[in-house]
């Protein structure tokens, strides 16, 4: 068996830990080797917010990393957005909205699921 598609699931916010940055790096190096989807769930949806400014944290702007890797499919879990008072219009352009069913389907159809 060979793994042809991978789903990286992020459920923690950017900047509070190294997890989001680590997940994006792992996803980036997987591009070209397999189809890559980044699924944002729970606090992970904050990763795709427009207008992030991380200069005072002295860490990279993680939304900019999404822009840098257009081959990466990014889906945001709609119920998680709504629970946090966020709207799809507030996300970066490459993010897709996925309801519960669509999000689950994307996870199920990937050959491999990685939760960081």
């Amino acid at each position, binding site marked *: 068996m060979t793994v042809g598609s*991978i789903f990286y699931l992020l459920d923690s916010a950017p900047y509070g830990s190294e997890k989001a940055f680590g997940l994006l790096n792992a996803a980036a190096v997987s591009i070209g080797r397999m189809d890559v989807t980044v699924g944002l769930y729970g606090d992970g949806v904050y990763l795709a917010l427009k207008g992030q400014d991380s200069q005072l944290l002295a860490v990279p702007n993680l939304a900019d990393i999404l822009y840098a890797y257009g081959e990466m499919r990014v889906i945001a879990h709609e119920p998680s957005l709504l629970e946090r008072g966020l709207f799809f219009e507030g996300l970066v352009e490459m993010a897709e909205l996925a309801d519960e069913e669509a999000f689950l389907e994307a996870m199920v159809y990937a050959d491999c699921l990685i939760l960081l």
Partner: protein
Amino acid sequence: MKTLTIILTDGPYISEDAQIAYKVARAALKKYQVNIFLYLDAVYIPRMGQNPAFFADEGGLFADLASEGAVIRACSRCAAARGYTAEEDGSTPDYHDGMKITSLYDLPEMIARSDRVISL
């Protein structure tokens, strides 16, 4: 032979993940090829000289896995950030034998050639 890849992100002792990975890998090695990729704080696991008062030395446990044939690699960016530097062949005096610091690009390679992947 089928291949199992285990991805770890927690350091030793902060959680039971390394212990669980050790037990799963130990059992799997009897029938399968096992790869372990150490990411983020998991790069601390192979460090030599660990001496926990109440737990098993997880560096030693992973050294046993390596000696039994498990391929164990640590992310170079994560390792560098935590003060570990590697020789050209990926070895480092800070780690037990058999575990190397290599590129993050090894991660998708390991995954692509696996029959099952577990992330802890």
